């Protein structure tokens, strides 16, 4: 009987001590922060494009001999924010002293967000727009307006593509 009381007393002592042991444990939290910043990356399938010579009556709009330019635009932007790809000519087409206005180059485009347009050396022209982040691909077919009045020569111009993710 006395042994049973001692056992009961020991159990009570252990039960009372147990909560005290849990209260001594330290709870802690760590805040994990992953920063996703804006970034833009642009890939063009070629660095050069060429318009072959042609009869203006037979081919009034000459496509580039290598076909469309394939464009891959990768961008990370805030939700709802417009990502824009523009194109601007550095100058008119030039062959020595002869000039053909940049507006003689136009394009058609395929791919979501891509639009056709006319080249300008004065201001950037929109090639494509999208909303938010993503990887977008499209193709752009350049055309040269072929006129009898163009002075003969080999004309060159540099085109600058700019992808902006605000």
């Amino acid at each position, binding site marked *: 009987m006395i042994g049973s009381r001692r056992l009961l007393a020991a159990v009570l002592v252990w039960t009372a001590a147990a909560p005290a042991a849990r209260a001594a444990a*330290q709870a*802690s*939290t*760590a*805040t*994990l*922060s992953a*920063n*996703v*910043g*804006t*970034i*833009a990356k*642009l890939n*063009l399938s*070629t*660095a*050069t*494009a*060429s*318009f*072959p*010579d042609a*009869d*203006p*009556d037979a081919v009034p709009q*000459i496509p*580039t001999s290598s076909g469309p*330019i394939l464009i891959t*635009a990768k*961008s*990370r*932007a*805030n939700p709802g924010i417009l990502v824009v790809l523009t194109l601007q000519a550095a100058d008119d*087409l030039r*062959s020595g*002293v*002869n000039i*053909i206005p940049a507006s003689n*180059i136009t394009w058609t485009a395929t791919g979501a967000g891509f639009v056709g347009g006319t080249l300008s050396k004065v201001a950037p022209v929109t090639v494509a727009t999208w909303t938010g982040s993503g990887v977008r691909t499209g193709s752009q077919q*350049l055309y040269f307006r072929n006129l*009898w*009045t*163009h*002075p*003969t*020569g*080999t*004309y*060159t*111009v*540099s*085109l*600058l*593509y*700019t*992808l*902006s*993710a*605000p």
Partner: protein
Amino acid sequence: MKKAVWCGAIAAAAIALCSTPAFAQATATGSVTVTANVNAKAKLTLGAASVTFNDADPDVTPLLTATSALSVDVKARTAAASTVTLTVQAGGDLDNGSATIGINNLTWAATGTNFVAGTMATTASTLASYAGGGNFSGLQTYRLVNSWNYATGTYTATITYTLTAP
């Protein structure tokens, strides 16, 4: 345990301080060099392949006029400073197989920008000329001196038109 909490807090603060703000604009650029080849070309279109003079009394009609004017369409592309030239040249005198009429009896009047009147010869005579390229159209009306001295017959001559865009 407290040490672990403090380390976590310091790490989180460091990440926040060193990261790029989410609202910074990201841009990517690409360029394409475009070349357009514009070569010299010449295209000549005559409204008819034959010209006819009807018979007439030399006293009444000393100068015969062809039954219809000949339309001449010129398209040429050349260097800006070069001159496009259209010439006509007879293969010989007017001939009926047994008699001839001197080809210098054949003259023409012309209308249209850059077209000029002239007298036919077995050497090249200028019908039109202009600097640079472009499209031009004119009408050439042939006339033949009508003389009592001509032997009767049907006379023919071949006229060659040559358009040159250097």
